[in-house]
């Protein structure tokens, strides 16, 4: 079986076999010369033997990805092919939407419908775990809608402010 696995922006093409009679699944990362045998030990617990060295990995599923812990290092790992289909397009530089990076409470809303805003201008200030975060305009344009208010509980993915982008050519970062 062939897999294309993604961690942040790094792609790992992996060739793997079905489990053998001892429950070990053998695999290799193409182009890296790493062979490994992996066995499932308990819920969320895998044992890896790679190039003669053994280690334990711990995993937990989260939405579309899998959290993996190896030797004190936690990574969110994706299947590159399903990830591509799910997102539709590859994300462009920087966020394009005004949404909190973490669940938070809105403390101030400087954005006003109809206002022209420059890229980087403060639109919404949210508070999470005693820290204030400012959400800024991802591009210059005119505020067309504000979907939040002071005191609102907001989550990542929720679009708080919509901006009608300036016509091409007028945008200066």
């Amino acid at each position, binding site marked *: 079986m062939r897999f294309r696995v993604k961690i942040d922006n790094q792609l790992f093409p992996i060739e793997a076999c079905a489990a053998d009679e001892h429950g070990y699944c053998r695999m290799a990362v193409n182009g890296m010369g790493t062979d490994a045998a992996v066995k499932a030990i308990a819920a*969320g617990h895998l044992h890896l033997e790679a190039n003669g060295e053994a280690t334990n990995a711990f995993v*937990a599923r989260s939405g579309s990805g899998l959290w993996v*812990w190896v030797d*004190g290092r936690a990574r969110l790992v994706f299947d590159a092919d399903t990830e591509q289909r799910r997102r539709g397009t590859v994300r462009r530089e920087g966020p394009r939407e005004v949404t909190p990076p973490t669940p938070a409470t809105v403390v101030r809303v400087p954005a006003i419908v109809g206002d022209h805003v420059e890229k980087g201008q403060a639109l919404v200030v949210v508070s999470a*775990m005693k820290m204030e975060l400012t959400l800024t305009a991802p591009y210059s344009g005119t505020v067309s809608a504000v979907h939040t208010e002071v005191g609102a509980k907001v989550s990542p993915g929720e679009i708080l402010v919509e901006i009608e982008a300036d016509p091409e050519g007028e945008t200066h970062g």
Partner: protein
Amino acid sequence: MFSKILVANRGEIAVRIMRTAREMGIGTVAVYSEVDRCALHTLTADEAFLLGDSDPSSSYLNMDKIIDVAKRSGAQAIHPGYGFLAENAAFARRVTAEGLVFIGPPAAVMANLGNKTVARTIMAQSNVPIIPGMTVSDTDPARLLQAAEEMGFPVLIKAAAGGGGKGMRIVHDRAAFAEAAELAKSESMSAFGDSSIYVEKCLDRPRHVEFQILADEHGNVVHLFERECSIQRRHQKIIEETPCPALDEELRGRMGAAAVAAARAAGYVNAGTVEFLVDGAGRFYFLEVNTRLQVEHPITEMVTGLDLVRHQIEIAAGKPLPFDQDRLTRRGHAIECRIYAEDPEADFMPSPGPILFVKSPEGPGVRFDHALYTGAQVPMQYDPILGKLVVWAEDRHAAIERMVRALKECVILGVKTPIELMIDVLRSEPFRTGDVHTRLIDDHFSSWQPDRALDHLAAMAFVANEILGPVPGTVSTRDSIGRGMRSPWQTLGAWDMTR
């Protein structure tokens, strides 16, 4: 002795306090907010009472509700933990007025020490060295600037009522002073309801060294040695150790005596911490007194063998300290790492959410005080501390190696944590040589990136998990259906095991 105490806090510190109470045969009462119905501290106590919705003002900061619960449950004393109401003199006064015992210093002492300029005045009068600067707060920009110029830039503008880095500004020159003073005033006003500020000399890359003190109602005061707390981010400590690598016995003795003098000058009772800054030449200056149990108290417990919460409770019950300074000794070396739900790659931004998997580190010399379990929620309303990982070993080198080993065993999945950064900090040359100061993280780790050397192993673990699916006989998840081999538990449908 009390038969029941209420813990007016949440998370790992509430659980830690309840453990000692249980060992002392004292009943425990928890309070919780809506979002903490299934928090570990709620589940750990003998009794638990809902305070209200998740907003701190409706729950952990609501004095009326907490006192009402104390009375209804029959608790005789209240332990405030750290944060929330722990350093609120009005709360301490109220608890006492209601006929309950506050496990902490008297309200008047707390009020004096909570005001930094009052505290500086008390210390200066008792010959405890203070950082050069003002001992009276002011709001007049011209007078503040004059004071700054007299001591020479750089200076620190601080909120008189301050703490935790709020209302604090470093100013490097005259031109930036006026604006910084305005910002400090408004930040202080919104954080503490008081815009008084003062100016003190800014020391270059000082060490932050604090002394633990214990004082009883009978006039006995001792110190339990120091803690080195220089590794900070956003003016908050993240790694602490004891003993401090920079103190020799002579300096340790002088600082300990100054800490005891400071406690006596303030009329201190119960556990407290006297904080000092130490400059490159080994001169030390009083910074402030923290009138509560500190987050980092376990490292003192590890090297002295004493349970600080037990002594807090005994002191609050009126008992005299069972030892004097000469009887106190320390042994070995202890380090603490604070594990927060935060992203070290994004300026330590909070990372709340569900804990999807957790496995505690174990083995010799390891202690993990936490409030985690698989499935626990890290709410966004409160301080994002998940736990504090503490190790003890015979010497500093062994303690560092033990902490690296324990961090690698401390599996937390679902939220971001600084565990990986901490491993790299502990292994770094400045930390290994003991050459630490308060700007170490900023100087050496501001553009820190995770080491990618093991990412291919994580990728292979992902593939194995896809192929092998969940282990038969364990709880299955919806994701697992249709992948790997199905166990009878997945395929058999509903069973009634009682028939």
